[in-house]
């Protein structure tokens, strides 16, 4: 009884410790965004200060937040939909009509995620330039979809694996061909899995910075580029940078919080029921 209580206390302390450690930078960022530039760089750091919205005003004056936010939404949603469009049939084939090489194909797909993206930056950049899709939303949609495709296929594969094969076989006996089987049985049965996968893909797209910084300048630039533009030539302005970051991460933070149940299920790859 005593030891289980101590364990409980330890777990609570560790849990809160980890949570605070992870949350602190975000908290500090939000706090800084309400400071003046002077207060933002003060040493020792100030916890008590006169809050001001001047950084937000300045950020909005210098850049059109809505333009970047709209790009983020369109590119994230577009990239996710494109990835799903390829991944759903792929995962279906691998889950329900596996061959001797299915497992290694899946592993190979995942292994492409281990390649550092910067390794292919130059070829991709040149490709984009030749195709004339530098700084276009469609270009980013394609690259985001490709970037997330392995993980999306993997997640859908594990979710599809949970659907009892006999239900699909019953459908086949009932006269359903591949299309109907897919549309009337598999998709409705795996809506939760597809939703979790889409959610994770959306978040990964929203937070992606490497490709957006390198392949866009203004037209198609999403919020990550917007943030980066505040760490620029004139030097670092921490309050403004924090204000820009806060409004850039706020939507996805709220979105993630609202959908955390789905997300946790997605992140555990369907391992817990």
């Amino acid at each position, binding site marked *: 009884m005593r030891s289980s209580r101590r364990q409980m206390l330890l777990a609570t302390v560790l849990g809160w410790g980890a949570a605070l450690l992870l949350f602190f930078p975000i908290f500090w960022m939000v706090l800084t965004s309400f400071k003046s530039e002077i207060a933002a760089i003060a040493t020792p750091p100030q916890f008590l200060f006169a809050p001001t919205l001047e950084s937000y005003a300045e950020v909005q004056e210098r850049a059109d937040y809505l333009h970047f936010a709209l790009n983020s939404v369109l590119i994230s949603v577009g990239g996710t939909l494109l990835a799903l469009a390829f991944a759903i049939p792929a995962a279906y084939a691998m889950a329900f009509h596996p061959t001797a090489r299915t497992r290694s194909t899946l592993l190979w797909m995942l292994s492409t995620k281990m390649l550092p993206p910067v390794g292919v930056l130059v070829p991709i950049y040149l490709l984009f330039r030749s195709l004339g899709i530098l700084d276009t939303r469609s270009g980013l949609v394609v690259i985001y979809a490709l970037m997330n495709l392995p993980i999306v296929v993997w997640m859908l594969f594990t979710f599809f694996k949970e659907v009892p094969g*006999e239900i699909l*076989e*019953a*459908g086949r006996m*009932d*006269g*359903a061909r591949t299309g109907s089987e897919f549309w009337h*049985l598999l998709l409705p049965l795996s809506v939760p899995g597809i939703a979790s996968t889409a959610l994770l893909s959306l978040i990964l797209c929203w937070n992606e910075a490497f490709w957006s910084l390198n392949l866009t300048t203004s037209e198609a630039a999403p919020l990550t580029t917007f943030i980066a533009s505040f760490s620029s030539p004139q030097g670092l302005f921490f309050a403004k940078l924090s204000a820009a970051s806060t409004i850039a991460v706020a939507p996805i933070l709220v979105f993630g919080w609202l959908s955390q149940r789905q997300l946790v299920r997605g992140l555990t790859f369907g391992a817990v029921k």
Partner: protein
Amino acid sequence: MATLQLRNLRKSYLAHEVIKGVDLEVADREFVVFVGPSGCGKSTLLRMIAGLEEITSGDLLIDGQRVNEVGPADRGLAMVFQSYALYPHMTVRDNMGFALRMAGVPKPERARKVAEAARILQLEPYLDRRPKELSGGQRQRVAIGRAIVRNPRIFLFDEPLSNLDAALRGQMRIELARLHEDLQATMIYVTHDQVEAMTLADKIVVLQAGRVEQVGSPLELYHHPANLFVAGFIGSPRMNLLEARVLGADGAGVMLEAAGARLTVPAGGASRPGAAVTLGIRPEALRPDPAGAFAGEVRLVERLGGLTLLHVTLVGGEAVVVQIEGSDPTPAHAPVRLGVEGAACHVFDAEGQALPALGRHPLAA
């Protein structure tokens, strides 16, 4: 009209052959049961008929037409799965109507057919529920309903009752027999439960390790098993098997010596004196008899009320089971002599094949 023919049907997974050449004829309206121990290939064979497993070689004919390459959706068969495999996101109504919807049947006709099936299966109060809101027996009925609304050429059942408790299983067994009577349909049924096999089947197919051991009516298999495997598999308690030696043979049958007793079994076939054979005696063919040929001691008595089972160890150490109608007074640990009619015995040669009986059981002609 729906007949089925299997001609030298084979199935291999890579180099491993699981169905080793099955030949079978299923007549119109026949109720055929595949039985065998787990892993004997009975479910695989059913799935090959359904089209859910590819056929490696041989021919599968439905109504005389080869359908090896026809997909499951186009074979016109219906299947009831062991797990029921109901569509969890659909109501009972939609589950039962799904096949008709796939076939493009207009809505009013669909509703009429579903209502008809629901009436037959007493599912009317549950039509708007989802599978998870139903009991096991109700789910089972929905699975059967889903099959009957389509009016299929052949019904396939894959161990449909094995997930139900004993009482419900007995009840559903009777309902299935009634359904076969009412629908006058051809049915193929897989089970490892020999009570289901004996009671439902017009014809039983006993499978072992991918091969057909024997095909016949339930009583034919019971009274005239073709080999040791069928003899041991059909019947509960199992047939008693004793090592025996041939003494001679004449027109009346084979004379044997087993467990210190001599008897004549009316069976033919070439058996030379001295040959080692196996004597098979059903538990109900043995009875306590002061003048009986076998001597032994009762080790255990199981009194079931309507039946009494005596577990007897014979003088040579062989254990046999005796099944007696009613409540027998024989106490445990008592010496006992057992008598048997030669005509109720079976003789199997060294390869385990039955020697042909000289007479046929009247119900197994």
